[in-house]
């Protein structure tokens, strides 16, 4: 038994019926997250944080048409460099690539 590659067995209407409410919730969570940042106690400029700069670009991908939004989103969030680090900086990843890491 195999799947038809690239096809979800549900119709468009079934996918929307099944998943609309939970994805509506995710949209509202993102909107509330961005509002929360604007209510921050120090009123710091969000564009100073590399993660939020990437987040803004990710929102653009959501509203674009075309091939695999998730793939483009993954690449946007990835380190695009190819050379190994010469020294270990920290054990944990940060969630987005810091485009100013190399400059420091």
């Amino acid at each position, binding site marked *: *038994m*195999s*799947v038809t*590659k*690239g*096809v*979800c*067995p*549900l119709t468009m209407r079934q996918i929307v019926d*099944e*998943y609309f409410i939970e994805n509506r919730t995710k949209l509202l969570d993102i909107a509330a997250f961005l509002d929360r940042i604007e209510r921050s106690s120090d009123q710091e400029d969000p564009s100073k944080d590399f993660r939020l700069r990437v987040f803004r670009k990710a929102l653009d991908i959501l509203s674009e048409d075309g091939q*695999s939004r*998730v*793939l483009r989103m*993954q*690449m946007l*969030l*990835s*380190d*695009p*460099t*190819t050379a*190994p*680090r*010469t*020294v*270990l*900086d*920290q*054990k*944990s*990843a*940060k*969630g*987005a*690539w810091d485009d100013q890491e190399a400059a420091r």
Partner: protein
Amino acid sequence: MRYIEMHAHMVSRTTDDYERMALTGCVAVSEPAFWAGWDRSTPEGFEDYFRQLTEFEPKRAQQYHIQHYTWLCLNPKEGDDRKLATEVVKRIPKYLDRPGVLGIGEIGVNRITLNEIETFKDHVQLAVDHNQMILIHTPHLEDKYKGTKIIVDNLLKFQKLDPSRVLVDHAEEHTIDMILSNGFHTGLTLYPNTKVSAQRAVDLVEMYGTERICVASACDWGPSVPVALPYFMMEMRRRKHPESLIDTMVYRNPAAFLEQSPKFMLPGEAQPAAVPAAK
């Protein structure tokens, strides 16, 4: 419904978790060696861990009629310490003949340092020298794409390595193609926040088919769900995928990969399963 948990760090789970897994149909678990969340200070510390994985943990699993298998290594999070890694790699062979040991894992890279890559290559050479299967960890979040590429590129340099005996785990949308197209098996790991959700895992099955893809909880000491596979099965049903396809993903695919080790036996088998020819 029956399932095989391909990747679970049971040493950091409670006995209640074994019970929940057994109640939801888990018949076997494969446990790779990993990072404890803090660095071990000595090679002897690793030997104690290897004894835990090969002596104590199988007994705990057996209480719930779950077969326990394991993979040994020094994990990528500690791989930057070359002195420690070299010493631990020397000590692994004496554990390889133990009954539940299927191979070397989970090895790989973490922050993709030069040292981590050397430690990774030492482990691959160890596996080649001892004809062991390999289970590979790929890095987290922004490091995943770069790390997976470096891992795959390095694996391809080992000419004696049979890719069908290697599973490159924690694949996501941007890494699955490079893993499968080079002949390796892959795993999708279901995490609440990082890695893939059950929905995205089913999306990937719909996009890439079922061949050489396993699904696992990869549960450990962090936020993770030891019964994530039943949630994956539920998501498959939500999409109207047939039960036979679900069985392929959660039972037959992991069995097909693990059976390449003569030590792996499906539940109820008196004799070790035959080793299938490499594809």
